[in-house]
């Protein structure tokens, strides 16, 4: 059951996202930010993503260094372009980390089970999962359309129209086919769905949730 343990609990992820968001929009001290980043790094490491943790740590240091040392010295045009961006990214950094952790360590079906447990309406869950699954299909589709346009030598503004139209047509067709398949499999059955995977929160994720709560409380208490 090695792989089972490595799954980042989606509920922990959703909670940490809320916490990170709330902390980001409160005036907070540098050490609190560091603590939050540290906590997330520990979580990423706990899920066995060594290189990922290293990348985020380096990224954070680079961002802080960029903001503190390079921006003040750089020419006006660069500085105006990036100050807002850098400040914003630094604030959102914990959220980005949590998001990245969820993307790599939480498979879609676990997220769906978690959303179901949280009593999110079934319709919303279905729509979200269809959306997420359709992204790779869009890329594939655009690749085909591009090839076809090369063959017919379509250039300039025409390209835009000639990309959008087939994309819309194929999206419509996919919607029809997919819903026929889904209805056959009982998507409209009002009964409660069962699931092959069961969610059990790991001690690490649970501690992570508690630590997130603690940091949130601290950010409200300590000004």
């Amino acid at each position: 059951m090695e792989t089972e343990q490595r799954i980042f609990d989606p509920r922990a992820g959703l909670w940490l996202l809320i916490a990170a968001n709330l902390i980001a929009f409160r005036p907070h001290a540098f050490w609190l930010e560091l603590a939050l980043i540290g906590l997330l790094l520990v979580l990423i490491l706990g899920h066995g993503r060594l290189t990922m943790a290293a990348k985020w740590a380096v990224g954070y240091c680079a961002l802080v260094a960029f903001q503190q040392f390079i921006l003040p010295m750089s020419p006006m045009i660069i500085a105006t372009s990036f100050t807002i961006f850098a400040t914003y990214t630094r604030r959102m950094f914990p959220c980005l980390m949590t998001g990245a952790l969820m993307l790599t360590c939480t498979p879609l079906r676990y997220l769906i089970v978690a959303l179901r447990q949280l009593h999110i309406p079934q319709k919303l869950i279905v729509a979200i999962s269809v959306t997420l699954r359709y992204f790779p299909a869009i890329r594939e589709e655009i690749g085909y359309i591009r090839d076809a346009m090369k063959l017919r030598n379509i250039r300039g503004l025409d390209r835009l129209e000639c990309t959008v139209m087939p994309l819309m047509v194929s999206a419509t067709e996919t919607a029809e086919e997919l819903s026929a398949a889904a209805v056959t499999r009982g998507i409209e059955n009002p009964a409660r769905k069962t699931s092959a995977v069961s969610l059990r929160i790991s001690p690490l994720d649970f501690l992570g949730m508690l630590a997130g709560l603690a940091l949130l409380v601290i950010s409200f208490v300590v000004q």
Partner: protein
Amino acid sequence: MSEPIKRRGMSGKDVITVGIFSAIYFVINFAFMLLGGLHPLLWILMPGFIALFTGIPYLMMCAKVQKVGSVLLMGLITGLIYYVTGQFTVVILVSFVLACGLAELTRGLTHYRSMAGNLVSFVLFSVGMVGSPLPIWLMREDFLRQITEQGMPADYVNTLEALSSNVMLVVLFLAPVVGAIIGGFIARAMFRKHFEKAGLV
């Protein structure tokens, strides 16, 4: 599909259709969001650009799913994906839900079929994207304080102050309205030219 069914929830098929068009909407949206990282001005105009280019998937979705809740669902999906990937904030989730609620209401009042009603709802829906650059204003003190601490030249501070001034806030809200109107008309021309002939709408 052809006869309007009112006061009935969405079927599985409707939900899937909304999901697929949301994916297309999101991809366009995301592309412009990446562009917005280049310069704050681009970021502020971003909702406008997005509105200009997303008219077709949005109106297509409207034409396909003429039921209560479709727009709300589309907005919720986009907001949630942004939220879960950590790219955006609670602010965007709130602005999106508000805008979608209004858009949904407009569609409801115009009985889902009318093109004009859908256009108005698209304008409202597009305004929801302002939640993305809005934190610039919420964090305004923070970065102004920071650059003053670092002893930046005065003209630099002025540039940033101008970028985050109240005038720009108006621009932020106007850009999606203008973009959505133009985008909506482009979409309508496309509908006439292609989809109606092909019998898709």
